[in-house]
């Protein structure tokens, strides 16, 4: 290769290098514009909600089936405004739980369209005592509703009402006294195999309609629903001394819109 040819080749190589460097510089700048942002934790839009303390039982889809239950001897005392009151109460409770659980849970409720008149009188359901939430009534009514409403062949059976819609809860609005909810104390949740195993809550109709309970009657419904999700009381059930002022503690006496689940309870349900 002659000296002239070498000069030309050098000229071309340097020219290409300089132009390439300029183009690479421009490209690098544009590339840096579109580079990936530093990765920073972003909380999930939705959480996997589960039965309190049991990750194996997912409850992102909750179905509340509500029944207004009137003992036979109280049939004439049936409250005529129970249905709109129950509908409004369930709507607000739904809003409360969806907000507390970061909109990671879908709750739908279905109200049995007519009051269910019991086959027995109040005394049968209430037993000898109505203290501690009237658990006797809860169990007796659950058993009766299981055979009459939820089992095919029952005199009040309706297929659409008995259909499985995720995590099913039976809410009994009782024309009597009491409030309570089933709480599976066993951490090894047994699972819901049939309607007889449904988590159940019972709440006196008075809490939804009577003036004296207007501030926190609704909160009681939410509190009992908390039990059906596996949440325990946050107060001493014998002395009433609270351990916290959340919904499951002393907050059960506060209006629902000013209430909340404690962070511990949220953690138990899957909100980290």
């Amino acid at each position, binding site marked *: 290769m*002659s000296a*002239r*040819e070498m000069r*030309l*080749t050098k*000229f*071309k190589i340097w*020219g290409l290098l*300089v*132009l390439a460097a*300029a*183009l690479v*510089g*421009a490209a690098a*700048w*544009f590339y840096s*514009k579109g580079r990936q*942002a*530093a*990765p*920073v*934790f*972003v*909380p999930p839009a939705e959480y996997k909600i589960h039965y309190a303390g049991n990750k194996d039982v997912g409850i992102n889809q909750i179905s509340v089936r509500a029944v207004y239950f009137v003992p036979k001897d109280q049939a004439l005392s049936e409250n005529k405004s129970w249905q709109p009151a129950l509908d409004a109460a369930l709507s*607000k409770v739904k*809003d*409360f739980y969806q*907000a*507390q659980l*970061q*909109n990671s849970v879908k709750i739908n409720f279905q109200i049995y369209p007519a009051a269910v008149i019991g086959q027995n009188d109040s005394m049968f359901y209430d037993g000898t005592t109505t203290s501690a939430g009237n658990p006797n009534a809860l169990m007796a009514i659950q058993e009766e509703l299981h055979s009459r409403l939820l089992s095919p062949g029952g005199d009040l059976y309706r297929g659409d009402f008995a259909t499985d819609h995720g995590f099913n809860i039976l809410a009994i609005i009782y024309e009597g006294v009491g409030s309570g909810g089933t709480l599976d104390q066993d951490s090894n949740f047994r699972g819901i195999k049939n309607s007889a195993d449904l988590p159940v809550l019972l709440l006196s109709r008075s809490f939804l309609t009577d003036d*004296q*309970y207007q*501030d*926190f009657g609704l909160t009681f419904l939410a509190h009992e629903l908390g039990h059906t999700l596996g949440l325990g009381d946050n*107060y001493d059930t014998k*002395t*009433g*001394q*609270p*351990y*916290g*002022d*959340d919904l499951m503690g*002393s907050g059960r*006496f*506060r*209006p*629902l*819109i*000013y*209430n*909340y689940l404690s*962070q511990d309870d949220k953690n138990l349900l899957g*909100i*980290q």
Partner: protein
Amino acid sequence: MTRLSIKTKLTWAFAFLGLLPLLLLGVLTLYVIDYTHRQDVATMENQLLAQKSAEVQKFLDDTAGLFEIKVGYNSSAAISDRDQKFLLESLLQNPSILEAEFINTDGQEAYKISSVQDTSFVPLANLKSFTAFQKALAGQIYFGPVEQTLSGPLMTVAGPVTSEGGTVVMVVIGKISLEPLVKTLSFANLGNSGYLYLVDQSGYVVGSAEKKYLGKNLMASAWIKELLSGRSQDGLGPDDRRTGLGGQTVLAAGKALPKQAWALVAEWPEADAFALTSQLQNQIGAFLAVVFLAVLGLGWLAGRQILRPLKALEAAAERLGEGKFDFNLDLNTGDELEELGRVINHAAADLKRLQELKEEFVFIAAHELRTPVTATKGYLSMISGGDAGPVPSAIKPLIEQVQNANQRLVQLVEDLLQVARNDAGRLTIALAPTDLGPCVDSVIAELQPLAAEKHISVEYQTSALPKISADSQRLKEILVNLVGNAIKYTPNGGKIKITHELNGNEVITHIADTGIGMTAEERAHLFEKFYRIKNTETSKISGTGLGLFIVKQIVEKMQGRIWVISEKGQGSTFSFAFERT
């Protein structure tokens, strides 16, 4: 040889001198815009954070002030029921305080009022296990975790009720709505989509204009953790450009609120923060691209424009080199190139005149020489023939030498005359339908003695050929030259073969010999004027170097073409072609 045309050089020069600075300036501009705007964004974020954090802090300080109650006596007795009622009602005058209560030092609720419910149906309880009570009883102001409710964020605040002596006589606990803080954050504007949010000591988002962010725990983020530890983020750190709560890339800054171990965070989506500059940068980028293409195009056009007269000069120089001087360069560039064109025109005219003089001289000289050398030839012939008496045997070889020398002179003069005639345009050609065969026969017969002298066989296979368009006399001159050369350059005992070939509308004649052949370099110059191959094999062969030049002139005058195929030591095949009639 590798060549770089002026056009290419000019294009490169334009590209480097025009584009490179422009490109560098463009990149620098884009970078500076990006850098300075990033700083502007951080400044705006920090100003907003400073303003809003001051508001948040003021709200919290004012609230804390309300929960620090001092009684005007110096005993450990609890406040009277009447005073409790008065004080709590006073507290509830603050719309942010939703409920408040006095707690005895044993933890028992003493008196409770609320602006959101009737507390007469609410049983009083013992709160001694509550952290809020314990902290306040210890004389501290307590800010509880923020809880999200359907009515907005709530916070428990507790403080001690102290006597003049500093004894805690009761505790006051209240529920505070943080809605005023949320409103404060809602009114904070950062472009179209920037937002602020408040994070509490546990990493929860407790205040945000976007409700969907409330309650989210961000403690898993090192960035947030660092912020909550009291180190503010200025918005210019490498991690301040990050993924925001909404999942998009944001430019984030944060200000710590050390009293509560809270933090206020500003996140401005990059797409929005850089909307204006992105548009500007795109415009600059587009402008650069257009200029880039324009400069390249202009460089190419300018190169072509400049190159045009140079091309004409190059062509003129080539014509000069070929000895063709009948041209006139017309360069109207109005610069040095036009002047150079004029000089070349003058040179061409002068050279043409010189050539004419030379040709005239050659013609006259050759013409004047022809008579004496022809006469000399005749007299020498007469002498050697004995017309002047017997020639002594000692003289005979000398006379033969003179005759040979004279013969070469005669040939040279003839050739020179031929060339001069041709150059002067006096070479007459009379094209007519001509039979090739008889011409070849005639030439072979004429040269047979020379061939026989060297024991060279001349083979010619005549065949029925169409007539060609040629001047028969000139055709013979061509054949004499080519066959004569074949004999001259073929060693004794060689072979010459003459054949014809029909090729379309042409009749091609090949004269192939088994002679010395020639190299590619020699072939390239073979038809040039006065060119002779010089090597040991040709040194003893006489010639003027004009024969093949004349042959080529004649062939071309007769609209024919001539070429040679030869390899050194492999013989040569001269071929010429004329159109058939």
